[in-house]
C-alpha cells in the first residue's frame, strides 16, 4: 500500500469524478445502524484523521472507493453483490464513532 500511495502522489491528477463521503450514507446505512459518515477515520497511509464525510468517494466503478483527501490512498472499499456486501477497511487505522455517554 505504501508504494501505491506514493504512486498516487507522483502522478497527480485531476478528476471531478469523486463525491464527498456523504455519498456513503446510503450504502453504509445498509450495513450499520448508525450514520458512519460522522465517524472519524484515520488514514493508514498518511495518518490524516477526519470525518468519513470528507473522504473522496469514487462511485462510477464496480464498487465504492473512498480515498483520503490528503494522500488519495484507499481508506474504505465497499462492493455490494446481489446477496453479499464486501467491506474493506484495511486503509483505515481506526474509525472513531460517536457513542452515547456511559
Amino acid at each position, binding site marked *: 500500500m505504501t*508504494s*501505491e*500511495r506514493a*504512486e*498516487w502522489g507522483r*502522478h*497527480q*491528477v*485531476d*478528476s471531478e*469524478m*469523486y463525491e464527498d463521503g456523504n455519498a456513503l450514507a*446510503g*450504502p453504509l446505512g*445498509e450495513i450499520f445502524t448508525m450514520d458512519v459518515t460522522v465517524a472519524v477515520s484515520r488514514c493508514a497511509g498518511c495518518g490524516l484523521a477526519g470525518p468519513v464525510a470528507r473522504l473522496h468517494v*469514487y*462511485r*462510477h*466503478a*464496480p*464498487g*465504492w*472507493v473512498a*480515498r483520503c483527501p490528503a494522500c*488519495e490512498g*484507499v481508506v474504505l*472499499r*465497499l*462492493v*455490494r*453483490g*446481489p446477496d*453479499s*456486501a*464486501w467491506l*474493506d477497511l484495511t486503509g483505515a487505522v481506526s474509525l472513531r464513532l460517536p457513542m452515547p455517554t456511559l
Partner: protein
Amino acid sequence: MGIVSPGFRGRPRESGPELPPGQYLTRDFPVLSAGPTPRVPLDQWEFTITTETGQAHRWSWADLMALPGDTPTVDIHCVTKWSKLGTNWQGVPLDMLMADVTTDADYALVQSYGGYTTNLPLQDLRDGQAWIAYRFEGEDLAPEHGGPARLLVPHLYFWKSAKWVRGIQLMLEDEPGFWESAGYHNYGDPWREQRYQGD
C-alpha cells in the same frame, strides 16, 4: 437504488444473443474509475514485465511505438452490465512482448500507474488474447479511458483490462488484484457471468 451503478448512463436499451448473460448494449463509452486519473508524461512512461525470478524486461514509449501494432476489433463487457460491440483498437500483442521472456509462472498481476492491480492466469494474456492498447477508434487513447496505454483483454470482464498499465508481474502463485480482493470474481468470464466471488 443499488450500490453498484449499472453503467450510470440510463436504462438498458438492447439485449440480444450476441451479448453475455445479464448485459445490455451501449453505444457510448462509460468512464469507470476507482480513483484519480493519472497523467503520465510519455517521456516518463515505461512498461515492465517482471518474471518470478525478478528479471525485468522494460519498454519505453518509443520502444513500444517501434513495435508493429495490431488493430483488433473486439466486443467489451463491463461487470456493471454494459457491453460495447465492435470496438476498434490499436496495440501491441502481449505475445510480442512475452516473446523473449522466460518464465515458469502461471499467473500474472497487472499493475497500473495510480496503484490499480488486477490478476489473471498468464495463459489468458497469450495466444492473441491480449494487447497493450494505445489507440481507440483511430484516436490516441484518452486518459479517462486509460491512456496513454491500457491492457486490453476483452474475453474477460473489462475490469481486467487495466487502465494506465505500467507493468505485469509474473508469479508462480495467484494473488488477487484490486477488485478481486473486494468481492469480485477471480477470473471474470462474462459468458459464464462470473461477476462476484462464488458465481
